[in-house]
């Protein structure tokens, strides 16, 4: 199983997300994560899809995406060819005993505490998918209440010349 990131420019129209997601489910392709947002061009959105599969599946996903008429362009890259980031919000329950540990962990992991009440705090992490995973596992000892993640966003690394 290989991990692959698909950066897909699509027409910014209603129903397009459904068509792309439907393609993955119909053909039994995995979606590890999917993030959608507008781009610098008003009528174009970018979907960043992380998927995994064998060589043939990876190739089929790209070909099937290209077949969709609302898909403008498909770029694929492996993790080392791009800069990828994910944003995660984690709500944890803290107590006097572990509050310092949590804040220390946040310092080390460059995470921020963005909200707080008497017993709960919310931590924001924006980092590589790899480090997001690390952060989440480090927080397992604390009682995690809720987690929200954006899924991976990625763009290919800056080149001398961009097309």
């Amino acid at each position, binding site marked *: 199983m290989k991990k692959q990131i698909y950066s897909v420019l699509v027409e910014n129209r209603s*129903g397009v997300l*459904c068509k792309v997601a*439907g393609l993955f489910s119909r053909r039994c392709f995995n979606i590890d994560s999917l993030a959608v947002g507008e781009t610098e061009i008003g009528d174009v959105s970018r979907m960043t899809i992380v998927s995994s599969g064998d060589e*043939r599946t990876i190739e*089929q996903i790209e*070909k099937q995406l*290209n077949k969709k*008429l*609302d898909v*403008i362009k498909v770029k694929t890259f492996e993790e080392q060819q791009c800069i990828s980031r994910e944003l995660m919000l984690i709500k944890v329950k803290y107590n006097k005993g572990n509050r310092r540990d949590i804040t220390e962990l946040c310092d080390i992991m460059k995470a921020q505490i963005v909200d707080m009440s008497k017993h709960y705090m919310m931590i924001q992490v924006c980092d590589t998918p790899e480090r997001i995973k690390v952060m989440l596992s480090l927080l397992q000892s604390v009682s995690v209440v809720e987690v929200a993640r954006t899924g991976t966003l990625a763009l290919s690394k800056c080149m001398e010349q961009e097309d």
Partner: protein
Amino acid sequence: MIGADAIVKCLEAEGVTTVFGYPGVAICPFYNSILNSDIRTVLIRTEQNAAHAASGMARLTGKPGVCAVTSGPGATNLITGIATAFADSIPLICITGQVNSELLGSDVFQEADITGAAESFVKYSYLVRDAEEIPRIFKEAFHIANTGRKGPVLIDIPIDVQNAVCNKFKYPEEVSLRTYKPTVKGNMAQIKKVIKGLEKAKRPLICAGGGVLIGEAEHKLREFAEKHNIPVVSTMMGIGAMPTRHPLYFGMVGNNGRAYANRAMNESDMLLMVGARVADRAVNQPEVITRNKVLVHMDVDPAEIGKNAGPTIPLVGDVGHIFDDLLAEEFETDSAEWLETLAQYRASMPIKRNPNPKYVDPAKFITMLSESMKDDAVYVADVGQNQIWSCTYHIVKNGRFLTSGGMGTMGYSIPAAMGAKAACMDRQVIAVCGDGSFQMSMMELATMRQHKIPVKIIVLKNGYLGMVREYQHYTYKDNYSVVDLSGSPDLEKLAAAYDLPFLRLENMEKAQETIDAFLKDDGSVLLECVIDPMDLVK
């Protein structure tokens, strides 16, 4: 002008001659506007068959077939027909009425999310929100349906959009779609590789798929095969790409195909898959056709290449263009020995059948029928045992063989034959079905009568859902479950109810004279052939 008028104008601009459909309130503005046009409307008796009829028409004309039905159940009934066309890459324009735009999403009477429901069976779909967009959308839809890998396009039009004023009607001459530019010309470097391979090959073989016919490239394929003496086999959808008795043609491949055709596939050292999907019924073990040979996969859809079998030489493009390029190059091939071997295989591997003399032998009957049919006749096979017998024993001369290959939709033959006949009234069109598939579409006898579309129908009657019975015979040791068709109507009485001439053939004794009577004039006839209920295709 209102939106509905604009739709009709678009169809006229595309040269549409016939619309198959079924009205309901949500599509009534369109059916009102079409009264002012020369476009013929055919009232089909169930929506699914509107798509099949449009499919039959599309396959004969090479242009998208058009069907128009109402919202809700009309639209959902159409889905099987759309899926059938999609599986076989048949270009269709499917127009569905829709409830008022303002009510969309509120589950009102006869509302169905048809663009959502049909998403995985259409090449593309539109939900029209503004009447002024109708010309652009129709222009795009016809272009999308009939270029690249062809397929059905759905246009869902709310009733208020059909009734809205459309002032600026101008049918566009060009389409501009930034996301859709199918590859037409094959890559020359790849074509050169194919030629190099063919020069070296000792056992070259072409496997023709449905894409050859849909791409209207059968004559070019024939010319190429003849020029270089390359033998040809076909998939079920490719039947008719070569005349059955052409010395270079070696039959249909696959688990229902000819043993010598499969042997040719396995033993070839250079295999050109042309416009074929390499799907399970044609190529049971894709790994076999990639072993010990150079596999060239030519297809207009890049996603088909490598989907089921990894080719040595992928070649994306329109098959007609690729054959033009291949024909323009001069090179030598040597296949004399290979052709001899294949001829030997063909002679030594006949199908062994042991027909019951009390009944009609479908094998012999179908061959006799095809011998008597006109040179350019259209033979439409349904789905079931009848389809396999048709594939195996029908002899295509210079006509067409139509069937539902990918989806295997029962009931396809009668409406598709109607569409084919309506497209080419001067050609002989024969639908061959079983008693199961006949009963799935027998309501269309009324359509045939009403609209004077004289299709000739043969029902191979064995009182069973034969293909399933055969499966249960082999898999469940004759434990038959839900395959008994007793209760079927008396076909003679049924024919009389529709003023349809009727013939019955009970055994082979009077086969030729019955066939002659059946084919005598151009009118509709229903011919019932009594088949041994226990007859098997294998």
